[in-house]
Structures are given as structure tokens and as C-alpha cells.
């Protein structure tokens, strides 16, 4: 008899599983439909009830409970997986709860009712804390929910939360990649975690998937940064205190610090937006900075900027706000209520200091401004204003001066042109055309506030040189006692090359222009002679002239001397196409290395060379020195440009670098010269 009942029970489980799909389809059924299911299942419930009662009377209470509980849980688990799946764009928690009401609770209600509600539920639910403070108000089809049924509901919901949470945590990486489309999934996860409190599971799992999938040599710095920003935004929803974000962000930050282009990428992301992102991630249009600004504006009014917020969601969030910090919170970091998670702050955190960020931005800004044709700097002003909001006014003062230089230049430039008698002054001939000041626009910079500008020797054509002289003279007259010193290698030249059969227009650097100008008088040059004529070192010339070769304007061939090349102007159109295509790659590689402004790394390297010489100098004379003595000595005597302004930690890591280069060694906290 026992066996028979057991079989019957098993049959029921299988039957339930078979019907799973059917029930999923009927999830949103209304009350009357539910009633019919109830009736349909009534026969089964009675059967099971009989089995349970009989087993219980035999003393197998816990075994029977386990049996139907595990059946219900496995069903619920399958339901959660089916509903949640890999779609992160819909909220599923509500539907799961509805289903719990509609299916398993109905069954349990019937079962408990059949068993006469004498159900001993203490054993199963005493360990569960009740996440819902009050008894749910409505049980469809059940007028007076019993104590046992409520406990069952809590138990099932907790299980659902946990299952969904595990599912989402396992896919958190993808969810964050999809952010903000995956916002609903994040909302679900947030609610689940509030009940289960298993945040540490999230942290561990997410960190390991980050290590495995993101923080690898193959991932581009832009992608990592985008994921970092999405992570910040997503985790900010799950945990407004930022405690877990701190834990998750740390490995990303550590990794990014090891990459050389991190600062550059961050600054590009901040100021240029995804346009500067070669992999095309992120939404088109605005820079991150614009977005941050929008966020902060929105946050002032609503604190959350997502339009998904319905009224009750907002109310929910408001109600949530008063909660205390999680136990994991670092008490030294202040209360969460006042703390806003600042994406920019977290980006700066990667770099280390605001100054470094500003420095890099300054270099990029200088590059941009110097290559401008007009004086249109509206977007730069906008970016700078945004930076000012986030970084403070004082730190970007130099950048402001740079922009002001541009504005002043525009005025001065117009002034100078207006005050000059038009054609006569520089009536020199250039390729048969008059050269007047009309074609010249100058950017006048206060070089003290700009990054170091790379000097490059260059002889520009005499007529243009004359023009520059006139301009400078005029400037001096207007702005006495100030004088204009030209940086002849900077700026851009628009020129047109006229051949017998075609005209070609180019926008090039002055160096390129000076090179091609030489071919006006003489169609063939050896690289040595050309270098002498243009005043450019031979190796630089050979590099730069590739531009014209790639455009099919010039052709290069080996000269009499092994390191002397002959460049000849190409007049025949037919050979052009061929050369053009083959040299395109060469050009790209060349342009990469051409920058008019010394990069931050170069500046830093220059500073460090000075410090290195000082350190070697003092160690030569004093034998051995401790870290702080070196630090103090540098502070005292390394005062000329660039004066020593590093922290003790920076010095220490620099010295460690010198030790790895085998220039120094360290014993007992003292540094020595390596013999």
C-alpha cells in the first residue's frame, strides 16, 4: 500500500512537470479561469492529500513535506528561469510573484485545507526571517489565509528571490554591458538582494567575471572604461551607498592604472564623447561629461534620472532612502544619505589626481586649438565650463587662459588686418599669385600657460616669411611692448597644387608645405639638398616627405649615396593611383608620431631625468641616503624648472624604478649607487 501511494506521488510530480508549459501559458489568467484550474486539480490535490495524511499517520511527516516542497521548488525554479531567461529588458519579479499566488499557493491552500490546517509549520519556517512586514492583503480565491499558507508564501518568495538573484548575478557582466537597456533586470536584482542580503555573492562573482572577461590584454582601454562607467551606474542603482561598487571597482581601477593610455582615454571620453572611441561603443553624440552634467542636473530634482520610474517606483525609492548603511560600509566614509556617487570622481580616482587629468586635457586642448582654422571654440568653452563644475575653477585656470588666447587672437588678428593698407605692403609674388595678409590668420598664445610646444627648425618660403615679419611688426606696433615670436612649424596650411592636367587641394602642416614649395622651382631634389633648403633634419625630412609620396605628388628613388634619396615631382597622373594606395598605411603610421605639443608622458620623463641626475649626484657625494633625506634634498636644491614637486610616495616608486634599471640599490632603508 505504501508503495502504491509513493508511486502516485511520483506520478504527480511528473505530471506537474509535464504541465509546466501549460501553466506558464496560463500565468496571467483571471479569477474565473483560476477557479477552473483549481477544480481540475482538485482531484489530484485530494489524492496527494490522502497520501500525505496516510504517510503522516505512519510517521513520515518530514519525508512527505520534503517531497512536495522539493517538487514545488523545482517547479518554481524552472518557472523563474523561464520567465527571466536572457532578456534583461523587462521586470520579471512581479510576474513571478503573481505566478506564486496563482499556482503553487493555490495548490498548497487546497492541500492544507484538505489536511484540515493542522499543519505543523514551525519546523520549516522558523529559520526564515519574514521579509514582508505585514500579511499580504489578498489571496485570490482564498478568504482567510492560514498561518501555514503565509509561511509557505514567504518561503516560496524567498526562494524565488534567491533563484532570480543567482541567475542575474551569473549574467551580471552581460547585464551591465547592456546597460541602460538592462535597467529592469538591475531593478529586479536590487529587490532580490534587498531580501536575500547576499551582496557579497554579487561582488565575488562579478569580480571574477571581470577578471576573466574584461581585464585582459585583448580588451581596449575604451571598452574597459565604458564597462567601468556602466558598472558605476548600474551598481549605483543596486546599492546607492557605493559600498559594493567600491569593492567591484577596485580591480578595474588597479588594472587601468597599469595601462599607459588610460589617462588619454579618460580625457577623450570625457571631452570628445564616443566620437573619439574607435570601437564605436556607447551611444552616439554627447561626451561623457555632457552626460554627467545632465545626470547631476536631474539628480538635483529627482535623484534618479531614469524614465522608467513610475510613481510607485519613486515612492519605493523614497521610502528606501532612510535605511541605514549596510554593515559592510566603512563608517569613516560618512553617511550614504548625503553621499552621491560621482562618476567623474571615480574616473579621477583611476588616474590618481585631478591635476594629472587636467594636465592631459591641457595637452589635448592645445593640440586641438593649434590645429584650428577658424577661431571657433564654442565646444571647447562648453567642455571647459563643464570641467569647471566638476573639477573646480582653480585647477583649469591655464586651460581658460588658452581659450582666452584664442579669443584674443581672433580680435587681434582682425585688428592687424584692418589696420594694414591692403595689397601693397607685401606685394611679393608667390607662384604667380599675390600674397597678402588676407591668407594669414595667427593664433597668439601666452606660451607660459600652454604645454611645452615642440620646436622644430624650418625655413619657410621667403615670401611667407616676409608676411610673417610684417604681421609681427604690426603686432608690435599695436601691442607694444609685446612682440610676436612665430612658431613656424605649428599651424596648418591650405594649399593648391596646379599641374598641367589637374588641380589638387591639401590642408597640411607648414613642414609639408615648405617641402612641396621647394619643388616649384626645381622638380627634383636629393634629400640632403632638400633638407638644407628647408632647414629640416634629413631624417625628419625623409619621414615627412612620405606624405607627398603617398599622395602621388612626389616619387622617391634611391640616390647615388646609400642614405641619400632623390625625390622627383610626379606629373603623370597614371602612375599616381598605384603609388597612392600602396603608401596609405605608411602615412597613417607617420601622422601618428607627429604632434605639436609635448605629451604629458614626455614632460614627465623630462622632469624625471633631471631628478635622476640630481639623485645620482647626491649619492655620488654622500654615498648612501635614506628616502626622506633624498626627498628633502631634492626639495631644497632642485628648484629650477622643473622644480621638484613630487610626493614621498612618487619618489619612492621612482627610486624603485631606478633600482630595477640597476642604477641604484637599496640596503637597510638606504639607497646606494649601483657599482
Amino acid at each position, binding site marked *: 500500500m505504501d508503495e502504491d501511494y509513493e508511486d502516485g506521488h511520483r506520478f504527480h510530480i511528473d505530471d506537474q512537470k509535464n504541465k509546466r508549459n501549460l501553466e506558464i501559458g496560463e500565468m496571467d489568467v483571471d479569477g474565473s479561469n483560476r477557479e477552473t484550474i483549481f477544480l481540475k486539480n482538485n482531484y489530484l490535490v485530494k489524492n496527494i492529500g490522502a497520501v500525505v495524511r496516510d504517510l503522516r499517520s505512519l510517521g513520515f511527516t518530514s519525508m512527505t513535506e520534503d517531497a512536495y516542497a522539493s517538487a514545488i521548488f523545482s517547479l518554481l525554479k524552472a518557472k523563474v528561469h523561464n520567465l527571466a531567461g536572457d532578456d534583461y529588458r523587462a521586470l520579471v519579479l512581479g510576474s513571478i510573484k503573481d505566478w506564486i499566488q496563482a499556482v503553487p499557493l493555490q495548490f498548497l491552500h487546497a492541500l492544507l485545507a484538505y489536511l484540515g490546517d493542522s499543519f505543523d509549520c514551525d519546523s520549516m519556517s522558523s529559520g526564515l526571517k519574514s521579509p514582508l512586514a505585514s500579511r499580504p492583503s489578498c489571496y485570490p480565491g482564498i478568504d482567510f489565509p492560514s498561518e501555514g499558507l503565509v509561511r509557505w508564501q514567504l518561503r516560496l518568495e524567498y526562494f524565488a528571490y534567491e533563484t532570480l538573484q543567482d541567475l542575474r548575478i551569473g549574467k551580471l557582466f552581460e547585464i551591465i554591458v547592456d546597460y541602460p537597456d538592462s535597467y529592469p533586470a538591475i531593478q529586479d536584482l536590487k529587490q532580490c538582494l534587498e531580501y536575500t542580503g547576499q551582496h557579497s555573492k554579487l561582488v565575488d562573482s562579478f569580480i571574477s567575471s571581470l577578471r576573466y572577461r574584461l581585464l585582459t590584454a585583448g580588451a581596449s582601454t575604451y571598452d574597459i572604461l565604458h564597462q567601468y562607467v556602466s558598472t558605476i551606474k548600474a551598481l549605483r542603482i543596486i546599492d546607492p551607498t557605493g559600498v559594493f561598487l567600491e569593492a567591484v571597482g577596485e580591480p578595474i581601477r588597479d588594472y587601468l592604472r597599469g595601462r599607459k593610455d588610460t589617462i588619454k582615454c579618460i580625457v577623450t571620453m570625457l571631452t570628445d564623447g564616443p566620437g573619439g572611441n574607435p570601437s564605436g561603443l556607447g551611444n552616439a553624440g554627447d561626451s561623457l561629461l555632457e552626460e554627467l552634467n545632465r545626470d547631476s542636473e536631474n539628480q538635483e530634482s529627482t535623484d534618479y534620472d531614469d524614465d522608467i520610474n513610475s510613481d510607485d517606483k519613486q515612492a519605493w525609492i523614497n521610502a528606501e532612502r532612510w535605511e541605514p548603511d549596510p554593515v559592510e560600509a566603512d563608517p569613516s566614509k560618512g553617511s550614504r544619505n548625503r553621499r552621491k556617487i560621482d562618476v567623474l570622481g571615480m574616473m579621477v580616482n583611476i588616474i590618481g589626481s585631478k591635476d594629472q587629468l587636467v594636465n592631459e586635457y591641457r595637452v589635448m586642448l592645445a593640440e586641438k586649438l593649434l590645429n584650428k582654422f577658424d577661431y571657433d571654440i564654442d565646444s571647447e568653452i562648453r567642455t571647459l565650463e563643464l570641467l569647471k563644475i566638476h573639477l573646480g575653477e582653480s585647477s583649469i585656470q591655464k586651460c581658460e587662459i588658452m581659450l582666452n588666447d584664442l579669443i584674443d587672437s581672433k580680435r587681434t588678428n582682425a585688428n592687424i588686418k584692418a589696420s594694414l593698407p591692403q595689397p601693397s605692403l607685401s606685394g611679393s609674388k608667390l607662384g604667380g599669385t599675390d600674397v597678402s595678409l588676407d591668407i594669414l590668420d595667427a593664433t597668439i598664445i601666452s606660451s607660459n600657460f600652454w604645454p611645452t610646444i615642440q620646436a622644430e627648425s624650418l625655413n619657410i618660403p621667403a615670401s611667407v616669411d616676409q608676411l610673417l615679419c610684417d604681421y609681427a611688426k604690426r603686432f608690435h606696433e599695436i601691442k607694444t611692448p609685446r612682440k610676436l615670436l612665430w612658431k613656424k612649424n605649428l599651424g596648418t596650411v591650405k594649399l593648391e597644387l596646379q599641374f598641367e592636367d589637374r588641380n589638387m587641394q591639401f590642408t597640411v602642416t607648414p613642414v609639408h608645405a615648405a617641402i612641396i614649395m621647394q619643388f616649384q622651382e626645381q622638380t627634383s631634389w636629393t634629400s640632403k639638398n632638400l633638407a638644407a633648403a628647408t632647414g629640416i633634419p634629413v631624417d625628419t625630412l625623409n619621414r615627412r616627405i612620405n606624405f607627398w609620396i603617398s599622395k602621388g605628388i612626389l616619387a622617391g628613388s634611391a640616390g647615388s649615396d646609400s642614405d641619400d634619396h632623390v625625390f622627383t615631382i610626379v606629373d603623370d597622373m597614371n602612375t599616381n593611383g598605384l603609388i597612392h594606395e600602396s603608401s596609405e598605411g605608411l602615412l597613417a603610421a607617420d601622422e601618428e608620431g607627429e604632434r605639436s605639443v609635448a605629451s604629458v608622458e614626455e614632460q614627465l620623463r623630462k622632469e624625471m631625468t633631471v631628478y635622476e641626475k640630481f639623485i645620482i649626484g647626491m649619492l655620488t657625494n654622500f654615498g648612501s641616503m635614506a628616502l626622506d633625506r633624498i626627498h628633502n634634498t631634492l626639495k631644497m*636644491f632642485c628648484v*629650477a624648472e622643473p622644480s621638484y614637486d613630487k610626493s614621498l610616495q612618487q619618489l619612492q616608486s621612482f627610486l624603485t624604478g631606478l633600482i630595477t634599471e640597476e642604477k641604484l640599490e637599496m640596503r637597510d632603508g638606504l639607497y646606494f649607487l649601483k657599482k
Partner: protein
Amino acid sequence: MPRENQDVQDNIPNTPAAPAPTATTATKKPLLVAKGPDGQSVLKRLQSELMALMMCGDPGISAFPEGDNIFCWKGTITGSKDTVFEGMVYKLSLSFPTDYPFKPPKVKFENVCFHPNVDLNGAICLDILQDKWSSAYDVRTILLSIQSLLGEPNNDSPLNTQAAALWVNQEEFRKMVQKTYKPA
């Protein structure tokens, strides 16, 4: 004003034969007058000399201000190749007067240097440190001069007659240099 200062604290004759104890006090004295009226320009000059010396990277010569006083420097000279002093490292002390560079710094060896123009107390007989001094010289030229003096002594006006007499026999001289050498 600097003139007077000089008279007061610089009463030791600028001869290489100056007795050691006096020389020691002399090196200390500029400390007191470091804040003299002309201190700023001297300071600037010494700072730029330091910078130049650090950046030039001449092999075998080096110097650096000692402690927090830029008027007192420690110097290091390595004997040039192909001389009897090859590979020997000598320590110097340089002390600058407040009216530097109009007056030469006082330079002496800190460890024993067996050399015709260096006495047992380390005083050096070198014309540019005395009457041939010019403000165009700087720390670097002084160190270079001393470095070349090691290989090319002036045997006509020796401070160390024994060394001057031994100079003709380079092998013996080298042995003597190594025997008397004590690292500072």
C-alpha cells in the same frame, strides 16, 4: 658691505699652506653669513651651477650641497684613466664665500691624497683657486681642473716635496698613492 664681511671672516690668507685647523673654521663661517645682503644672488648662482653640474654629466666629477646649506658642498673626483690616480675616488669639500663668484671657493681634499700639490691636510695649490681666479669659473671648471691636476702636477711649487720627488718614478708613485689612500 660684502667687502667688509669678507675682511672679517676671511682673514685667513688664501694660501694652500694654510694650517688645517684654521681651514676648518673657515669652512664653517660662511654658514653664518649665508643670509647676508647679497645672499640672494649668490644663492641663485649656486643653484644654477648645481643644475648645470647635474645636467652636464661629466664623468668622474660630481659635487652636491651638504645638508641644508648651499654654501657648503661635498665633491667627488675620480682619477682619470691612464694616470697613477686611475680609479681612485677622492672626496673634496668646497665652501663658498658670500661674495662668490668674486672670490673663489675654498677647496680641500677630505681624504689623504698623495700628490705634489696637495698637502697632508688636504689643502690644494692650484692657481685658479687663488690669484688666477675669475668669476667666469664655476664648480664644474674647478672640479675639472683638480681632476686634471691629479694627472699633471706642477712640480715647481710643491706642497708635498716627497711626492714631487717621487713623481719621476710613476710605478713607485702609484704604489705610494695606493698605500696612503684612505677612503673618506
